[in-house]
């Protein structure tokens, strides 16, 4: 496995080796040493003969530590087994028993889980008495609530997913559901937590034995040895440190194994470090972008984009997912963060941004008014009162009723449409020359979408701000914009007016896009055109035109060399003047 070559992988292998060595070989190798008393060498410090010294009966402390590992780890594993077994049963019950009983059980678990495990273990130790196995039982039972809660939460999250609903519709019974669908999907996080739990159990055990409530003499484990060592710490501190180090190392070993398991199951991406920024000189047009490139390590999602917006102009940037349109918008707004690197020149006046999801784009912990007012306070240097007043005015400008009340509310109290209006109002707190709207209506209902698009038009007309509207929907762009830029695989392939778009675009991709999406006039008797293949990913670099592999008009020249952007089209064979009928008979795939 490649993962073993990472530092964590090495650590995991080392941990496992360490544990196995101690548990399997420790008692075998040092058994004799551990019981040999030497009344001539009581309580000695470290020496060549006794690496960590001797105890009150002259026995080699290191040997005793080694021998004790089997009992210590064994009891810890026993406690873990009890905890996981009990937790699985109790935590799995709500899924099997149904709503009422399930709620009762989960409520009970919720109450018990509030108490720290060690406290419960101590109470149970009182009830069950001292001794190794009773302590294991105490610790195991004390950890059952935590595992039950974990099992239950994991099971509930799986149970809420569509494939469980689908299985129910198929008639799958509760028990089969639990074993076939739910448990396999929670196995991995449970294994991780069980491994970490084993480490915790080990530590809890050491604690109990240390207090004298766990393993009793003449048996001994690390906890008991630690206790003995502490009593004589002024005579021989090493005798206290050795068992302590063993406990710490073993606990660490379990943790490393748990983290490694989590990584194996989860799969984490390693980010490539980088740095970079772009220049932002003075305005001329409302917005000018020259040869914009955005790179993340080897991948270059934006491969050289150039365009400009005149003051008050409304331009759409259209593309499918993976075309690079959103990153272009973010780069223009200066919001690309490391490890992304931006090259190229961007010059624009004051910019306002409207993002796609207003629920996540507004800070849930702050009132709407605060988020609007701070723009004016920071950039406009307005007083608090004046800034809030402007916020109310702007909210009214975007047609939010009862703005004075809304301004004091939190984002989650507003509807989706209102939130998006609030975002637009936030952009208007200054005097933006450019408004960049990234899929502002994708998450909204169609009637609300119309209102927002109308609002953007009104705002642009009144304030003279230019709009760059990013969308995957040609019809949406057609509603608001006068010009459209079509992006494919990181470059602009066509720059045309909306009239041209309606009459018949020149680029084969734009035409295919138009033909494959049904509109209100589509011919129902014809199948929809489909575009075979898929868009190249940002890491792929093709020698010729990126669309060539999927283009019905491609020839050898298209595959060999990339066409330049000329007369608004980036194509060696632009289509002249034909209109596109939706559901053209394109090539099926």
């Amino acid at each position, binding site marked *: 496995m490649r993962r073993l070559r990472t530092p964590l992988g090495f650590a995991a292998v080392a941990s496992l080796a360490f544990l196995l060595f101690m548990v399997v070989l420790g008692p075998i190798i040092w058994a004799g040493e551990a019981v040999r008393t030497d009344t001539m060498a009581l309580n000695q410090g470290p020496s060549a003969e006794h690496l960590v010294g001797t105890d009150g009966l002259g026995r080699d402390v290191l040997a005793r530590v080694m021998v004790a590992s089997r009992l210590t780890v064994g009891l810890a594993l026993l406690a873990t087994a009890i905890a996981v077994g009990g937790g699985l049963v109790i935590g799995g019950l709500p899924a099997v028993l149904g709503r009422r009983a399930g709620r009762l059980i989960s409520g009970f678990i*919720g*109450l018990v889980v*509030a*108490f*720290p*495990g*060690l*406290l419960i273990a*101590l*109470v149970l*130790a*009182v*009830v069950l008495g001292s001794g190794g196995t009773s302590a294991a039982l105490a610790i195991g039972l004390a950890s059952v609530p935590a595992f039950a809660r974990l099992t239950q939460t994991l099971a509930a999250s799986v149970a809420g997913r569509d494939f469980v609903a689908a299985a129910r519709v198929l008639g799958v019974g509760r028990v089969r559901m639990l074993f076939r669908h739910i448990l396999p999907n929670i196995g991995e996080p449970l294994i991780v937590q069980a491994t970490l739990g084993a*480490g915790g159990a080990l*530590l809890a055990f*050491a*604690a109990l034995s*240390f*207090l*004298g*409530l766990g393993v009793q003499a003449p048996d001994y484990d690390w906890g008991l040895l*630690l206790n003995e*060592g*502490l009593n004589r*710490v*002024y005579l021989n*501190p090493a005798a*206290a*440190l050795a068992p*302590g180090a063993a*406990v*710490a190392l073993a*606990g*660490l070993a379990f*943790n490393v194994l748990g983290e490694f398991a989590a990584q194996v199951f989860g799969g984490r991406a390693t*980010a*490539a*470090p*980088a740095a970079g920024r772009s220049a932002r000189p003075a305005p001329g047009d409302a917005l000018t972008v020259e040869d914009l490139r955005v790179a993340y390590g080897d991948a270059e999602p934006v491969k050289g984009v150039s365009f400009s917006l005149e003051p008050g102009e409304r331009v759409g940037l259209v593309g499918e997912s993976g075309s690079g349109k959103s990153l272009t918008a973010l780069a223009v707004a200066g*919001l690309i*963060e*490391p*490890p992304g690197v931006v090259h190229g020149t961007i010059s624009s006046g004051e*910019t*306002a941004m409207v*993002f796609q*999801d207003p629920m*996540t*784009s*507004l*800070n*849930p*912990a*702050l009132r709407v008014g*605060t988020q609007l007012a*701070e723009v004016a306070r*920071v950039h406009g240097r307005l007083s608090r009162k004046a800034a809030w007043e402007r916020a109310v005015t702007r909210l009214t400008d975007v047609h939010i009723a009862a703005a004075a009340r809304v301004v004091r509310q939190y984002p*989650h109290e507003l509807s989706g449409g209102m939130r998006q209006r609030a*975002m637009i109002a*936030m952009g208007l707190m200054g005097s933006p020359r450019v408004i960049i709207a990234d899929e502002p209506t994708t998450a909204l209902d169609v009637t609300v979408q119309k209102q927002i698009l109308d609002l953007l038009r009104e705002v642009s007309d009144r304030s003279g701000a230019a709009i760059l509207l990013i969308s995957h929907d040609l019809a949406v762009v057609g509603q608001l914009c006068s010009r459209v830029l079509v992006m494919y695989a990181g470059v602009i392939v066509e720059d045309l007016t909306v009239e041209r778009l309606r009459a018949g675009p020149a680029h084969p991709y734009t035409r295919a896009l138009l033909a494959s999406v049904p509109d209100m006039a589509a011919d129902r008797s014809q199948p929809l055109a489909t575009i075979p293949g898929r868009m190249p990913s940002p890491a792929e670099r093709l020698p010729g035109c990126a669309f060539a592999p999927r283009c019905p008009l491609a020839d050898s020249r298209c595959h060999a060399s990339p066409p330049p952007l000329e007369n608004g089209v980036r194509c060696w064979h632009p289509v002249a003047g034909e209109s596109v009928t939706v559901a053209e008979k394109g090539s099926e795939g």
Partner: protein
Amino acid sequence: MAIQTSHPWAAYLGRRLMRFLLSLALLVTATFGMVHVIPGDPVRAALGVTASPELIAARTAELGLDLPIWEQYGRYVTGLFTGELGQSMVSGLPVAQTIADRLPYTALLALVAFAVVMVTAVPVGMALAAWTRGGRRRGLELVFTGVSGLLAVVPEFLLAVALIVVFAVTLELLPVADVTGAMGPEHYVLPALALAAGPAAALARIVRVEGLGVLSSDYLRTARAKRLPARLIHLRHALPNLLTGALTIGGLLISGLIAGSVLVENVFAWPGLGDAMVEAIKAKDYPVVQGVVLIYGGAVLLVNLAVDVALGKLDPRSTIRED
């Protein structure tokens, strides 16, 4: 959209108080039941094998252990309201007295440790989140994860032993607790450090992870789009959202801290509740154990309630969420 009551805050508080009272009832019943589940005669176990039958009978009657169980439960609960927690089976001293004597030491230690945790973990975690975002400063990230991982894993009593060995025995820099009662601030250093180091490391890690999440969230992107100064971005926009996640874990850690104090007290021979409890368990002095567990459990529940209330203030959405 959920139907909102006219006072969502009051409803939220009401639900939390309800849960607090239920948990308290559970705690009281558990501490009561704990003693009665133990096999054998507790009085005989406490007084030892040599005690005479008359003494045992007298003690049993004295403690009311010959009454029917429901009556004992009733007495127990009513006794709690008057602060009557029974008497030690071994010494005969009122349990309430023992608790009153020892609680201040435990409480003070726990508070000092808690302060240390908060003052170190949150700023360190936040700073590291800002510094190591987006793969920057890999070296720093590695050092931090390594050191904090180690500290978080080593249990407090081990740390306590190690600290004693290093600072008290070898270097003779700081004293270990002096039971004669002269406890100056320097006596608090080692125990508080031992208690706080693990939770502080764990909390710093959590704060960093939460911070990374918050700093790459959509609303932080909006804040950056507004070109706000870094101070506002971190303190006004990031911090409140970060605190909600950190607070939940912080609450758990504090509960763990309360439990860990039992062990640390033992190592340092600290004259607090934990020490009393362990001795009582070994001596099978159940009334003392009952009383101390009640205090510890109650403290944990109070901490949870405080965390819930604080969370309700920080994250307005959580007050609507049903549990």
